[in-house]
């Protein structure tokens, strides 16, 4: 399978390990990723609060380039995915909007190139028996709280998974031998948009609830599909711990990192050493268990 690849701004900076691990596992899974040349920022989190048309037009340019190449777009970041999907839907829903957007971006975009979430694409690519041969390490011992975040499976009308209790990430991780916990914060917002903007104090109490819920459910790590969630859950965890004088010690992974680990890719190539909450001890535990549990 070949996709146009839209890493988005975060993946070239704060979310670099998401980018690294995505490219690595794509190689192993036989997914060809063609990075959209000279892609632009989709305007996520700011444009749609400033101007409706701008919010639709910025992602449209990237989609247009992909459409020219005849490809659907694989998007790792949930926020970029949500904005790009909104554009795709708007163009398909209204001829008038299609025309306006084309005029604004001065390019042709017919709504044929689809915005697709990386999680969905990876989930599809591991269906079938062939994947069994590729698994090097079973992720036994991982008790993951899958955190989908708020944007990945909303709005409900275009979502690829259930907006209240999504399962795709859980199923993906089960395939690689990890356990996932049943918890009720899968799609509760983490307040990331306040984190990056100017209201971190709002985020702290939202985050606290997520950590407690994951802990109560018996998780030993969190898994995300969004660089904004990651930033928030990983980087701010220590801050929240300090604020409430407690310890959660919950390493946070991108699902791509864990898939990569299971596929036998070296942890440093996946960026696993770049986390704020040290993920390596848990990773090492899984690797040590490997002897007995090699797939």
């Amino acid at each position, binding site marked *: 399978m070949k996709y146009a690849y839209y890493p988005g701004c975060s993946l070239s900076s704060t979310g670099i390990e998401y980018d690294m691990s995505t490219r690595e596992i794509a190689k192993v899974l036989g997914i060809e990723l063609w990075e959209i040349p000279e892609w632009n920022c989709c305007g996520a989190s700011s444009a749609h609060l400033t101007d409706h048309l701008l919010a639709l037009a910025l992602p449209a340019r990237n989609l247009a380039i992909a459409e020219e190449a005849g490809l659907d777009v694989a998007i790792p970041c949930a926020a970029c995915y949500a904005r790009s999907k909104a554009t795709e839907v708007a163009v398909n829903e209204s001829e008038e909007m299609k025309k306006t957007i084309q005029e604004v971006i001065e390019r042709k975009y017919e709504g044929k190139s689809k915005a697709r979430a990386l999680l969905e694409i990876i989930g599809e690519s591991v269906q079938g028996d062939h994947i069994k041969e590729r698994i090097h390490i079973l992720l036994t011992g991982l008790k993951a709280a899958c955190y989908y975040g708020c944007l990945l499976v909303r709005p409900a009308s275009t979502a690829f998974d259930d907006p*209240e*209790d999504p399962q795709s990430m859980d199923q993906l991780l089960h395939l690689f031998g990890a356990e996932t916990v049943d918890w*009720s*914060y899968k799609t509760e917002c983490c307040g990331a948009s306040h984190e990056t903007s100017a209201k971190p104090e709002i985020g702290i109490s939202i985050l606290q609830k997520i950590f407690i*819920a994951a802990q109560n459910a018996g998780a030993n790590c969190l898994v995300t599909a969004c660089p904004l969630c990651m930033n928030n859950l990983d980087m701010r965890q220590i801050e929240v711990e300090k604020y409430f004088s407690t310890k959660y010690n919950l390493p946070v992974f991108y699902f791509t990192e864990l898939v990569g680990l299971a596929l036998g890719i070296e942890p440093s190539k996946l960026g696993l050493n770049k986390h704020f909450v040290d993920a390596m001890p848990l990773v090492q535990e899984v690797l040590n268990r490997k002897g007995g549990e090699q797939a």
Partner: protein
Amino acid sequence: MKRVGVFVCHCGTNISGTVDCAQVAEAAKDFPNVEYSIDYKYMCSEPGQEMIKKAIEEHKLNRIVVASCSPRMHEPTFQNCVERAGLNPYYVEMANIREHCSWVHPNEKEGATEKAIDLVRMAVAKAVRNQPLQKTTIPVTDRALVIGGGIAGIQAALDLANAGHVVDIVEREPSIGGKMAQIDKTFPTLDCSACILTPKMVDAAAHPNINLLTYSEIEKVDGFVGNFDVTIRQKARSIKMDVCTGCGICMEKCPVKVDSEFELGLAKRRAIYTPFPQAIPNKPVIDREHCTYFLRGKCGICSKLCPAGAVDYTQQDELLTRRYGAIIVATGFELFDYSVYGEYGYGKYPDVITGLQFERLINASGPTMGKLQRPSDKKEPKNIVIINCVGSRDEAKGKSYCSRTCCMYSAKHASLIRDKIKDSNVYVFYMDMRTPGKGYEEFYDRSREQYGTQYIRGRVSKIYPLNDKLIVRGEDTLLSQPVEVEADLVILATAMVAQPDADKLAQKIGIGYDKDNFYTEAHPKLAPVETHTQGVYLAGACQGPKDIPDSVAQASAAAAKACGLLSKPEILTEPIVTEVDEKTCAGCGTCLLICPYKAIDLKTLTERIAGEIVERKVATVNEGLCQGCGACTVACRSGSIYLKHYTDEQILAEVNALCL
């Protein structure tokens, strides 16, 4: 000579508020054949009808046009009126200038008046061509069928039986009683449900005029008003009903345990069982899907133990066909499946239960002997949340309608909990409190004032488990603040929905149902227990969410209607039926396929053509079955089947009056 009189009604201001009635009456004077025309405030009233009668005499009128409301409303009124004046009732033609005109064009007075004039012009053209029609009679079988043995069905059957008519109740469960048998106490008086229901169940079983056909379902309904031929499937009970004494020994020793439907999964029953101890008939059935004998050919314990030798594994389903004069449908409701709500845990949290499950938990004869304990750990709950409107008033995930009973039963649940567990806290999340019944508002008042229930106006957004509690998040919209309750138990007042197979039964009987599969009454105000199919009546929650008082009232009303029908040896039938022109009918049978009431058949004609005897097939209409819908008339390619009172000539005359 056709002499038409036109009578334009104001309907108070319903019509005259928009349509200039005097102008309409004036304009009608110029229409062909119109001899007399007048407007009046209330045509349907006594003086209005007198006016028509007098005009018929004085002006020698022989065709009457009434321009007023829908014919569904008052056509029979005016037909009776002209009949009393000596005319054939079908000489009346109605122009609907209310529903079709004034009500839909309230802001266009001129246009509406013009339209009303056109409608009258059309009606006059048709009236001139109306033919006298005669009602015929058909015999009536004096026996009624009640489908569904809940409180509504039982009440209807008792009323009919007491009036001297023979009634069969067909109930698909092993016992009659319906949902009311599962309920603990009933609002607004808090009397025990069983205490008021079981005597009625016993009465029904003992009544010489009532036959109970439990564990039975409707297979097929043929025929028509007065003469329905109904095929009933009596499912194999595996018990000889005439031999079984109801001792219950079999049920004690059966090794199989499965979830009890009656206890809603809160307790087990055996494979040979009665749904509850007061079941009527109090004789068990074998659930063949779970019985070891039927699954593996071994066991047979119940048969060995039965002192009466009543167990019979070889029994087969039996089909029974009976003729009934009238049918009362009383199949009740089901509860909304709340597992569509991800935000309420998709039905996965054991301590989130439905209102009906609560009725079992608080019931002295229920699985916990009336001790209120939560399902997960059997602890007594201290903080209880009740959520109203779950699945009701929810276009996104549930039903758009209000279920009408849940505000009240939630108030009841709150009071019962507070009565039983004195140090408990009960929070009811509601959107609006709907307490319009007699004594209902006072009941709600008591649940607050006397029992101390906390009412919070807001819809719950999420329930999630935390340790051994359930956190319930809602907004107190009166405070404008999000609130949280740490609950031990959450009770959902789930919507009342139609039976899952309600549509299939409706199709068998030939009655209508709405978007939510509730059965539709013939008129929401004026014919609330009749259906569009003559001789079929509705009772209870199958027609829409209803509580017990309303179900019982409707059941008695349906019984009264059925009595009216059954107490006559024969009835008049509507002459607006189709007729076949045998000369041109090609016998192709298209009409047979199209007729929704199966009223058309083919018959063989024997004719002499050029000296030779030939046979040919033509269509023939059963006037008892034909409902005059006219579907066949448009399907017939040779135009050989026509609907009396709505012939092509008559309709075209209307079209011409409008367009030429």
